[in-house]
């Protein structure tokens, strides 16, 4: 493969292959050979070489995305507004590489993208191998960029991809062995670390995580070697054949921590950074979920700020923001977490006599367990953490510390850019085709993607009316409502009880999601299921807008097996209405329990269509995406 081929500005529409297929032999770069020597080079747009090699081809013709800069800016601005003004996250276009002029991004998304599977919503990643050649993922975002437009990340990632095959070809045999050695070492070290830390919850996490890292990296390596058909040695080929079976066995996601297991809860408490007092009057049905007193955590954490040496201040800040609810929304939380991790990685220095990979992984795990104590992870965050740990584990040993750190930071930027920012743009582009003049669109709560869709459709000049349905206790719809009315959309506002009164006038329902599970269940803010059910009863189509990185291979039948419990006091007190104080003084009665669910599970039969960056798919295709795109692309 010639890395110096000139860019092609026209991409041939190819048939997208879904299902089992063998990629063409003269394939693109191996995914995990040693890293490029020089990560930052003058960006040269030569991304389209990958286009030819991507096995699934390019099925969509280039579609123009209208000037998209304000989407991401809007998103950033809203993310900023949603969060208290912080300096830790400078959502400038520099750090999060948003290509405003990236018109043709959409076309390459569906073949090149890949969804992470197996990430349990807590920090315990599923032990599922996801093998996506890193190169493919990086180049996806810059495929079809007109020459001359080169974003820093895009260029750098192109460079990554360019350099990798060169080095891969020359040093492949040796580096693969070194890789394997390093991986085994990491595995052994992780096991030792796990034993040292005991069986506390976070150790289970790190154990699982590191083993997950080793497993997917091994599998990734073997599958990428599969791609280099003829050049693969026999032994490596064997490894490649073995990996899929192992993957299949490990396909079942690692069981999550169940909080009714007293011994594990006690051990977790001992190592916890955040002192949690268990809530009184716990609802029996939810004994398996953590339920804590909410008022006491924040002041306690604030006092500890200067005591926690191992905790990076940026991570600490993000944790506090999660705890106080300043950052909400799957994408915002994920981006905030990654920005904090970038800071932490930037300031990281390997202690003597430790390897970077192992130590950094352990440190990231400790950060993650801290974040979990502040607020349980969303599924998108879980997937993102798995990605990061995967990237860390794949760092070649030969890399210097600064190079490794900058690689990681670039990877993080790329992830944010491709999986979140750009995929939102693709979703918006698809979704606005479903909005016609005269529509009455209903939305529930405040989803960032749905907001972008509505604003974009409004800018395109479509005339429609929006119904914003809101619910207690978060009343998130008011935030969305304010932003929509400011932009001049005509809106109706109501509460979730009235949805069956208003549904007869509605033509379409747009919903956001925290995650879509493999049985098609949409895991989203509590109340979404009610809205979808009523829409179904009135024969109104329900469109769920969800980025592909939020897909998960877990399955869930109802909202009780897994959920998040919020602050019970938010139920008894009504914000802004002092006269609703019927429950004053009763809160500690043993007969009264207050249940504040955060999420619920919408059955797939209420959902007409899911709009993702892979296109518009029915709910039954979610496991297909999880499975197929996991295999082709390294989850990088």
């Amino acid at each position: 493969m010639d890395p110096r081929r000139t860019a092609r500005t026209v991409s041939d529409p190819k048939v997208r292959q879904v299902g089992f297929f063998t990629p063409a032999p003269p394939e693109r770069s191996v995914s995990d050979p040693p890293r490029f020597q020089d990560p930052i080079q003058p960006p040269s747009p030569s991304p389209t070489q990958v286009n030819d090699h991507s096995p699934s081809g390019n099925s969509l013709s280039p579609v123009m995305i209208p000037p998209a800069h304000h989407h991401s800016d809007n998103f950033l601005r809203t993310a900023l507004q949603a969060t208290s003004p912080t300096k830790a996250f400078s959502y400038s276009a520099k750090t999060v590489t948003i290509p405003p002029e990236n018109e043709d991004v959409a076309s390459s998304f569906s073949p090149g993208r890949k969804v992470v599977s197996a990430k349990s919503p807590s920090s315990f990643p599923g032990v599922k191998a996801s093998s996506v050649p890193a190169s493919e993922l990086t180049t996806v975002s810059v495929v079809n960029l007109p020459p001359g437009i080169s974003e820093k990340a895009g260029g750098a990632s192109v460079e990554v991809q360019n350099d990798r095959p060169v080095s891969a070809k020359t040093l492949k045999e040796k580096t693969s062995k070194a890789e394997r050695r390093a991986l085994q070492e990491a595995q052994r070290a992780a096991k030792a670390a796990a034993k040292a830390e005991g069986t506390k919850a976070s150790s289970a996490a790190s154990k699982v995580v590191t083993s997950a890292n080793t497993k997917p990296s091994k599998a990734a390596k073997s599958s990428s070697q599969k791609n280099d058909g003829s050049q693969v040695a026999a032994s490596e080929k064997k490894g490649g054949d073995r990996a899929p079976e192992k993957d299949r066995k490990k396909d079942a996601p690692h069981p999550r921590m169940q909080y009714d297991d007293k011994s594990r809860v006690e051990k977790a408490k001992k190592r916890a950074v955040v002192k949690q007092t268990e809530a009184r009057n716990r609802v029996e049905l939810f004994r398996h979920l953590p339920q804590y007193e909410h008022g006491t955590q924040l002041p306690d954490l604030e006092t500890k700020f200067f005591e926690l040496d191992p905790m990076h201040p940026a991570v600490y800040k993000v944790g506090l923001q999660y705890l106080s609810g300043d950052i909400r929304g799957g994408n915002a939380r994920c981006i905030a977490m990654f920005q904090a991790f970038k800071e932490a990685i930037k300031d990281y220095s390997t202690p003597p006599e430790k390897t970077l990979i192992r130590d950094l992984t352990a440190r990231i795990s400790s950060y993650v367990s801290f974040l979990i104590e502040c607020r349980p992870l969303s599924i998108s965050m879980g997937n993102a953490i798995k990605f990061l740990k995967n990237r860390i584990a794949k760092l070649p040993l030969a890399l210097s510390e600064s190079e490794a750190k900058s690689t990681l930071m670039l990877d993080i930027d790329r992830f944010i850019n491709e999986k979140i920012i750009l995929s939102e743009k693709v979703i918006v582009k698809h979704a606005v085709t479903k909005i016609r003049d005269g529509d009455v669109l209903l939305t529930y709560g405040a989803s960032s993607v749905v907001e972008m869709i509505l604003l974009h459709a409004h800018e395109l000049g479509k005339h429609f009316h929006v119904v914003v349905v809101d619910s207690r206790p978060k009343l998130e719809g008011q935030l969305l409502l304010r932003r929509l009315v400011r932009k001049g959309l005509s809106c109706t506002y109501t509460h979730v009880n009235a949805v069956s009164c208003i549904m007869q006038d509605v033509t379409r329902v747009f919903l956001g999601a925290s995650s879509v599970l493999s049985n098609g269940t949409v895991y989203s803010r509590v109340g979404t299921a009610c809205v979808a059910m009523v829409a179904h009863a009135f024969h109104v189509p329900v469109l769920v807008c969800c980025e592909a990185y939020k897909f998960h291979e877990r399955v869930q039948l109802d909202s009780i097996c897994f959920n998040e419990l919020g602050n019970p006091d938010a139920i008894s007190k009504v914000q802004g209405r002092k006269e609703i104080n019927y429950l004053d003084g009763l809160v500690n009665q043993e007969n009264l329990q207050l249940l504040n669910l955060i999420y619920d599970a919408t059955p797939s039969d209420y959902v007409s269509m899911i709009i993702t960056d892979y296109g518009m798919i029915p709910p039954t295709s979610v496991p297909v995406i999880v499975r197929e795109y996991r295999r082709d692309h390294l989850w990088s």
Partner: protein
Amino acid sequence: MPYTNQAAALIHSVKAVGERLIAANPVELAVGNVVRRVLHIVREEDLSLTTAAMAGLNLSAESDDEDDTDRDNHPALSAAAIAAASRSTLRPPSLQTLLEDVPDSAAVPHTSSSGGDSEGKSKSADKSSRSRKLKHDVIEAVNELIQDISTCHELIAEQAVEHIHQNEVILTLGSSRTVLEFLCAAKEKKRSFRVFVAEGAPRYQGHLLAKELVTRGLQTTLITDSAVFAMISRVNMVIVGAHAVMANGGVIAPVGLNMVALAAQKHAVPFVVLAGSHKLCPLYPHHPEVLLNELRSPSELLDFGEFSDCLDFGSGIGAPLLHVVNPTFDYVPPKLVSLFITDTGGHNPSYMYRLIADYYSADDLVLERRTTSGN
């Protein structure tokens, strides 16, 4: 207007008052129900008096069987009056009376004018005694009605034990006194069960109900309305009160209950509606979300102060950009209701129309009096 038929006069005056009461708040269907009940009572009492008198007349006529034909020729003084009066009550409304809305009692004096003075005197004597009896009966019946309405809770609560067994989980939304008494009656009988109360925004009546249940010792969990679908898979029964029950078996209920009913249907959870018989309305719900609904103040949803900049933002055509919809009631179609529990027992939604015949007369469905030239 001269009414020789006391009942018709009573009906007319009750209708006059009732019309005004209903016009004051058409959505409050119980008012119309009670008015129609009273009218029905008047008609019934009148009918029963007439039939009693007729029966008495027949008995007296029976004594001389061979003079059947003579009965008409030699009418007993009371018999003629009774027959005339009975004709007015028992006669089906003639086309003439329907079209012209002429009180059919006006026809009576003519037919019985052949009676003569003695008859007239006896008639008036009978009339006065009959009218006194009618008044007495009607007042008694209305008192009974008042009694029924105030004790409907107990009668309904008595049936609680039949429906709530041990270790049940019950879901309700908002607050209803009938539901409260129902659940407490089951608690008295030592049934152990738990209650999920949905708070019922934006009035938050669920908080009140939860407080009441807790003070009476029931295990209560308060949830938000949005969590209803999430929790309903673990619920055994949904028990709610109603604002009104319509003639087709549909329910006008506090807002949010249609959502609960749909969720209950999806999970095959019985949806039980408790309603006193005074809530049964003989009208059919046409477009109930709009016509039988009441919109409350938007300030319950949005703070005026916070959203004042958005609320009076006029667009180019002058229409406000932001509407806030705060309905009070929801319509639950009869196919979503599993059972009605009334003070007369448990009924299927498809049976409710039969109960209407017990409580209401067909003449009273439309309460507006048509103005005629004669008046």
